[in-house]
């Protein structure tokens, strides 16, 4: 049986014999803290409401960064020989990853206005891997209720700390390659992930209540398909740069093109 290193208060407290004499005081204290926490666990609910519609319109485009990109953080990974072996010397973090002709990677595009109704979550999971002491992918989007599979391909220890605000935050131990967990998120938000063993490791998992989203690849391209005819506000979010939005109206079957331009804030 695989040990579960979940950071679940009730579970860990039960397994620690030295706690037993203190339980009388600790259990109420734990409940008090849990009750006061805005992130108290919630039962997974099937969202109620009219079903959301799918259509035949689409919007595609390219996200580019104009100007000189801001400097990325540089780190050395000497605190872990495994990571240092993969990335010796100073390594630049791909916070602002710019490809040819300003193509901006890792931008999340999601419809923020215009989509209504309840969309069923896909059953197939999306995977967040830990590979070479970095998250892969760095930005990932899933639907509310869609399983997120968290795996590690690294022969070193990681912890996966999801600093969720709207959903329940968690901290999982991944002591060996092959370790895996599956988690779902019930509420829309962009959840920052970090590894506290390797503090340079960062990922962002966007939880969206409908299927109208995309994340740009190395070529900066995106495509959102299956939209019913209507007017939409689309948000382009980047972990470092100010969020951009655009509005467009689509007819049935229309394939619109919209490029999004981020401007590099000139450094002082």
């Amino acid at each position: 049986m695989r040990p579960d290193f979940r950071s679940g208060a009730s579970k860990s407290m039960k397994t620690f014999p030295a706690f037993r004499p203190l339980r009388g005081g600790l259990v109420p204290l734990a409940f008090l803290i849990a009750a006061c926490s805005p992130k108290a666990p919630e039962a997974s609910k099937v969202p109620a409401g009219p079903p959301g519609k799918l259509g035949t319109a689409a919007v595609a485009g390219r996200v580019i960064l104009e100007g000189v990109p801001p400097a990325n953080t540089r780190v050395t990974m000497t605190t872990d020989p495994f990571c240092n072996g993969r990335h010796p010397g100073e390594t630049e973090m791909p916070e602002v990853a710019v490809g040819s002709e300003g193509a901006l990677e890792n931008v999340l595009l999601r419809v923020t206005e215009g989509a209504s109704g309840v969309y069923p979550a896909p059953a197939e999971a999306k995977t967040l891997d830990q590979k070479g002491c970095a998250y892969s992918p760095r930005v990932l989007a899933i639907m509310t209720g869609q399983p997120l599979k968290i795996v590690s391909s690294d022969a070193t220890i990681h912890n996966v700390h999801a600093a969720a605000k709207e959903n329940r935050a968690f901290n999982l131990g991944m002591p060996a390659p092959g370790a895996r967990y599956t988690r779902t998120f019930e509420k829309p938000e962009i959840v920052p992930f970090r590894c506290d063993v390797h503090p340079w490791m960062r990922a962002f998992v966007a939880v969206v209540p409908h299927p109208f989203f995309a994340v740009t690849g190395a070529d900066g391209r995106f495509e959102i398909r299956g939209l019913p005819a209507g007017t939409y506000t689309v948000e382009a979010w980047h972990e470092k740069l100010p969020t951009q939005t655009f509005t467009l109206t689509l007819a049935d079957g229309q394939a619109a093109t919209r490029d999004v331009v981020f401007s590099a804030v000139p450094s002082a």
Partner: protein
Amino acid sequence: MSDDGEMTPSRPVRIAARTVAVSVFLLLIAGALVTSTGSGLAVPDWPLSYGKLMPPMVGGILYEHGHRMIAATVATMVGLQILVLGFRRTDRTTFRLGLAAFGAILAQAVLGGLTVLFLLPPAISSAHAGLAQIVFALTATIALRTSLFWARFTDAAPRAAVEHGLRARASRLALWAAGATYVQILLGAIVRHTGAGLAIPDWPLSFGKVVPTGAEWAGDGVLAHFTHRTFAWAVAALVVAAALALRKLDALPGLRRLSTLWLVLVALQVALGATSVWTTKAVWATSAHLAVGGLLWIAGVLAAVLLARAAALSPDAAVAEAGEPQEAAA
């Protein structure tokens, strides 16, 4: 066991108490490094670490698990100290302080575990930081009360030519300074554990002004950060006033040196607070700021304890005590 502090403690007691107090200080530094390096959640489970007693000490695990190991060792030492204090016939108050220190360090371990399991809620993390300084104060007071210096002080105090008014004033100021330093430590803990350390990016001004204005107050953590940096001036003023008052009690041994140390520590602490901001929270600066904050607090506690001792042993206290039954009889 004797009544309060009447005998010179044996060498093992003195060594044990001093070692324990120094170890608690080292534990404080180890704890500071955990937060300053952002390693608080590098080990997701507790009391085991990744289900083991000894996980691989890589990355943040070195700080977090290292802190746990040092804490377990120091807690054991604080427990053993009770036996040393009990068997070696120290006075009753010191023994009780030993018991209190052990109780406090056990509670500290529970708070440390809870903060990991609940993903570092600022309230629990700040309580953990606050209780750490209580453990430090208790063990430092034990080290003081079991030292040869304490015996010398006890000897000299009844004969010291100290004006009652000056001593009472110094005593009051020392209590206020120590109390304010503790409040400041709690404010610092809130700043640190809510991630407000860089909420105001400059120092000594705040956003280029004496007081932030308008929308600047809406920034995350600005209020906590500004309160901490402003209250520092009240702490500094009280510490300077108390340290200067100590210097007027020259007839009591050790107080002049304590006063000098106290003044140096408060200046250093303000400089380290500023350096934490200027270096955008360099690990060494924030850790040193926490450690020197602890020493500043201990200087206040020891000053207050020594002045209370001097008051209890002063000739006017003896007169008052002798007078009481007569008044009662009258």
